[in-house]
Every structure is written in structure tokens, then in C-alpha cells.
């Protein structure tokens, strides 16, 4: 098990119902994609946030990350929709 800070933004935050949380993640959750799968099993709100495959983006320790990015060393993982700044 490793302790991870999760952060959510925009409608991902609204669907999950909180802006951030600290959770214990089982060691077999190795990548961003694993984490999304594992979160979807934790409850309706997560299933709703991640329902459309490939829409939600992730950052690992504040750097954009692909689904296959490892999270073993990560302290902070964030999920959000495509950016609309600028």
C-alpha cells in the first residue's frame, strides 16, 4: 500500500464531489490507467467521473501523464478534463 494525494478539477471535481483526498492505494495499482480502473470500483461518483474512456486527463506530480505512466513513486496524481485556458 502507498499513500497518494489525489486532486480533481473542473467537472471531474464536481462529479466526484471533492477537490482532493488522500488515499491508500494497493501496490498492484501500478499505472495511471490502473488507478482509474481501481477508482471506478470505489463508487458511483468515480464511475461517473471516468465514464467516457479517454476523456479525462491525468498529471503525475504536476506533469502531464499518459495512461501507461507509472505511479509507484508518485506523491500527487490529478485528474481533469481537457484544458480550456488561454
Amino acid at each position, binding site marked *: 500500500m502507498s499513500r497518494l494525494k489525489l*486532486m480533481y*478539477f*473542473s467537472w471531474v471535481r464536481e462529479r466526484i464531489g471533492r477537490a482532493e483526498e488522500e488515499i491508500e492505494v494497493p501496490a498492484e495499482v501500478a499505472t495511471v490507467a490502473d488507478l482509474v480502473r481501481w477508482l471506478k470500483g470505489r463508487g458511483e461518483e468515480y464511475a461517473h467521473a471516468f465514464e467516457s474512456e479517454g476523456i479525462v486527463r491525468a498529471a503525475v506530480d*504536476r506533469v502531464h501523464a499518459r495512461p501507461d505512466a507509472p505511479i509507484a513513486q508518485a506523491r500527487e496524481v490529478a485528474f481533469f478534463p481537457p*484544458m*480550456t*485556458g*488561454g
Partner: protein
Amino acid sequence: MKPLTETKPRIAIQREDFSIAAEVEALLRGRHDLGAVVTFTGLCRDEGGRLEALELEHYPGMAEAEIARVAAEASARWSLAGVTVIHRYGEIRPGENIVLVVTAAEHRRAAFEAAEFLMDFLKTRAPFWKRERLSGGAFGEWVAAKEEDDTAAARWCKG
């Protein structure tokens, strides 16, 4: 020719408005070797009166870091004397500023291209999300990302 001295990029994520004149002046101060300064200002449109305001959410910490990465990429591609990026968050009303990019260089082509590059990548990489507040006060939709922004960013990646 001496290579151009590049000052550290200035990156600010702030609630407050900015001054184009003050930012240009800061980049030029004490320098006599620059021939070109480009500024881009992005503003909030009222979308034909439909919009009362935009609410801009951002990811503190990552926003600064990601813009710094994009600025470093611009400095690697073009010979620049300086780069400034200021991005606002919070409530922004029609006619108000959202984002400022300033680039200074010896020659105009570098200043223009770097400013366009910075804007294209800010749009697709900087962790900001816009939500509409409609006339009357009701919250509207989160603004959807535009495919044309991805296309604009992709044109800088060749080979």
C-alpha cells in the same frame, strides 16, 4: 554577433489584472539590442450578450510549472531576449483580460512565432478550465476544449 542574453521568463498566475505597458517596459528596460516585441492579450468575450462572466479554475503549482516548461521550449526553439506569461484565474467579465504573452527578440519573426507557439501550447497544456456564467447569473457549461486548438498546437511538432 554576440548571442542574445535571455532573461529568465516571468510567469505569473494571478487573480488581478495586468498592464501590457508595464510588462513590455520590464522586458525592454536597459536594453538596446532588441528590435521586436510582440504582445498577445486574450480577453473575455460576451458571446453576443449571452455571457455574464467566465469562472477560471486552475491547478496551483502545476499551472506555473507547465507554463515554465512551455516557455523553456520556446526559448530553445527561438532566439529570444525575454518571455512573459501572465494568466488570470477567478471571475473574469466580458471585455476583461484573461492572458498576456510578451516576447522580445532581435528580429520580428522570432518574436511573432514564439508568441503564437506559447499561446497554442497554453491553450492545450496549461491546467486551466473555464466555466460560463450566463446573463441572469445561472452557471452554464464548462467550456469544451476545441479540436482546432489541438490542431494549432500540433502544427509546431514536425518530424
